[in-house]
């Protein structure tokens, strides 16, 4: 089944499912896959830290990297995923042109992700982050194959 992940959203699935998210800008797209259990999930988080609006985080933890990422991993574990086997990929986190610090939400999203992974002894297998591109991600849960589409071009992550 094809599932769409909208902004501030998460979807999980198994063999036979395809998960898609469109138009990643500075948001983080995080893809987690267990190739043995053939389960996986995708998070599309908008902002780095939930402390900016705890009320929103309560209502929708997927809006923030610090609350959304743990939710995704917990869900994958509950579906039979095992930490040692997980393949973790990241996309998005881009920024508009110019050196204006306050618009670097994408960079902060990425930093918080890396901190969380590091704390848990995990690494990114692949990433397509930064720059000023908009990105669409297709995540095939039969194989774990992740395709990034940007400016009309597709590439495998």
């Amino acid at each position: 089944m094809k599932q769409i992940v909208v902004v501030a959203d998460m979807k999980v699935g198994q063999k036979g499912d395809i998960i898609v998210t469109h138009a990643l800008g500075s948001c983080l797209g995080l893809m987690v896959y267990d190739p043995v259990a053939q389960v996986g999930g995708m998070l599309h988080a908008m902002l780095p830290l939930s402390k900016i609006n705890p009320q929103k985080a309560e209502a929708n933890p997927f809006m923030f990297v610090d609350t959304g990422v743990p939710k995704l991993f917990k869900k994958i574990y509950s579906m039979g995923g095992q930490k040692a086997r997980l393949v973790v990929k990241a996309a998005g986190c881009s920024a508009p042109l110019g050196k204006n610090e306050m618009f670097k939400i994408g960079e902060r999203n990425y930093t918080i992700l890396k901190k969380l992974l590091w704390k848990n002894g995990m690494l990114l297998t692949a990433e397509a982050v930064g720059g000023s591109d908009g990105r669409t991600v297709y995540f095939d849960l039969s194989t774990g194959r992740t395709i990034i589409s940007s400016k009309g071009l597709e590439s495998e992550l």
Partner: protein
Amino acid sequence: VKQTKKPNILAKVKSFPSMPGAAEKLLKLLDNPDTTAAQIEQILRYDPGLTANLLKLTNSVYFGLPCKVGSVKQAVVLLGWKRLVQLVMASCVNAVMGKPVPGYDLPAGKLWRHSIAVSVAAEDLAKELKISASEEIFTAALLHDVGKLILGGFVKEDLEKIETEASRGISFEVAERIVLDTDHAEIGAQILKNWSFPLALVNAVRWHHDPDSAGKTDILVDIVHVANILCLMIGIGVGREGLCYKSSPLATKRLGLKGTHLEMVASRTLQYVDELCDVSES
């Protein structure tokens, strides 16, 4: 002499649909403080589509009215004139802005969603910054990208050239100007001029990517500029060109904007957009 497509583009601007007749009459009436709700109903009676759209928007959760509104008269009383003008405008452009936009590769509905997002984000930014921006902020934000409707076809034809220019790290609208001798902001402003819109609105659309070039600084221009970039960042209406636009450090300075303001507004924008778009799309 360099061959340019600008004359063809401007010809398209000329033949771009004018505001629906009812809308034009309404906007004139709404400018007049002596206008009565009955007069407005009288005009809308002949445009049931516009009325239905208007009432749908009025009843969206975003405006938080205490009860469902079933008539224009009620809408006027509960929302006030200013809001009503904005919603008449939104109802009028809803259909045309809901179309797919070539060149920028925006599927059907995406430009409308982006426009609504920039409107609510701009209003929320003004509130967050405790700035009393003019009431035109909603409409200025709503229409900032109207030029894409015309320029999209031309961008598509010359996409390779434009993308080559843009790949050198310049803003996408600058690349448009290099190749097409105009950009979507200028074309948008021209459309609003043809619609006889107030100058403040025309300027906000004209300079939404380059607020520092507006003749005199204007909070309205700065806010639309920032709200637009923010909405692209959070993925609402991001086209093929991605985030290939430059933010103005001077505009953020003029507004006294901080990162926390941006993130706070971003965290609320999504809900507002859903509240307004669900009704207009159903």
